[in-house]
């Protein structure tokens, strides 16, 4: 279940990128969203970090030309997502809040690193813009995933019940 959600989301992110505007208001971050959604399905945090690392590595190799950039970022995001899951319970609204907060953290961290290593020039408006452009589509996708996981967990007596 977890690996299927992750792989489908990963591929869907690549496919959807071809049908939305490059700088439009529907920037897909489906791999990150799927990582957030599958977090409560893990009993062991080490396993979750492994998923985060390898999905980030695949992201680097398949989609971007950065070697371990996303592998590290996704591991860090996994840490943040687990902390947020400890604070907020697994209901529909809280999951949306976790997704929104994770997207904000993800954008700030990636932008911060790119600026720090002099790959980009600093522009607060560009950062805010990137966050706003990432929220709509990814929140909708997280709702869809929530419904799918909930249906599945009813059968398997998983979390989200």
């Amino acid at each position, binding site marked *: 279940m977890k690996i299927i959600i992750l792989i489908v989301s990963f591929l869907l992110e*690549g496919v959807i990128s*071809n049908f939305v*505007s490059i700088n*439009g208001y529907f920037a897909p971050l489906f791999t990150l969203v799927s990582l957030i959604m599958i977090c409560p399905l893990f009993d062991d945090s080490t396993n979750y970090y492994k998923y985060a690392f390898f999905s980030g590595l695949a992201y680097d190799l398949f989609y*971007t*030309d950065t070697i*371990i*950039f996303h592998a590290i970022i996704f591991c860090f995001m996994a840490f943040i997502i687990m902390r947020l899951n400890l604070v907020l319970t697994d209901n529909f609204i809280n999951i949306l809040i976790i997704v929104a907060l994770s997207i904000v953290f993800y954008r700030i961290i990636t932008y911060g690193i790119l600026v720090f290593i002099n790959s980009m020039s600093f522009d607060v408006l560009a950062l805010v813009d990137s966050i706003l*452009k990432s929220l709509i589509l990814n929140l909708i996708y997280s709702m869809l995933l929530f419904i799918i996981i909930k249906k599945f967990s009813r059968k398997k007596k998983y979390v989200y019940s």
Partner: protein
Amino acid sequence: MYKKRRFDKRYLFILVVIAIALVLVVLAVSLQKDRDLNPIEKVAKDIGTVVLKVVSAPFNFVHDNIEAMIEKDNVYEKYKELKNKEEQLDSVISQNDNLRSEVDKLKETLDLNTVLSDKVYLNATIVSRNIGYWYEEVTIDKGSKNGIEKDMAVVTPKGLIGKITKVSNYSSTVQLLSNDHMSDKISVKIKTKDDYVYGLISMYDSKTNTYTVEGISENVDIDKGADVVTTGMGTVFPSGLMIGKVKEVTTDNFDLSKVIEVEASVDFDDLDYVTVLKRVSN
């Protein structure tokens, strides 16, 4: 016991600092724009391109069919538009032939093997677009096995979109002109009444889809709507690639030179098929 705990904390702190420093060094190396892909990356990129092409195929099929259905409604208008263009075509073809023969004669006279505008064409399809948001890159389904090389110019029928920055066997990464680092200092020429004036692109604004061209003398008259094309100076872009049309002409803060807003001829949000140009060198 107390001493041991203090030592452990210091040891941990040093380890964390070293780890962060190492991570930053690795990231700085991996994010270098002009680095070449290693063999593992090349293989992964090729596999990714094939997988994405297969997964995208049904989505593209539906998308193309919907677009074809929408276009069917405008067939008559398009027919009229094409008929008008066809009437002008004969004169353009004869003019083109005339210019081509003149260029050939001049090349013979000057004993030149190539001119700045000579190029070879390779067509490609975009398989993924700007994933990761910040990089302003697209991936195409042609690589070194198809003759693609680093720094080749990439165009659409509307104009220049960027250049090849990374090449694997069966896929390549195109850095778009919408990226800050790319559009900086591209040499362009603007058509005036009977000549060209030369300038440099200094930035791109994604909100208005315009480039800013600087370094143009104050006493030159430039009309709105004039064509802006590449000069062919430098090693990357051949001459005569369409950049856009003049949108607004202003002067800089010191009234010493003109600053020109150029509306990009390409819509960077709507890229599907591209052509890679290989510049022919002597």
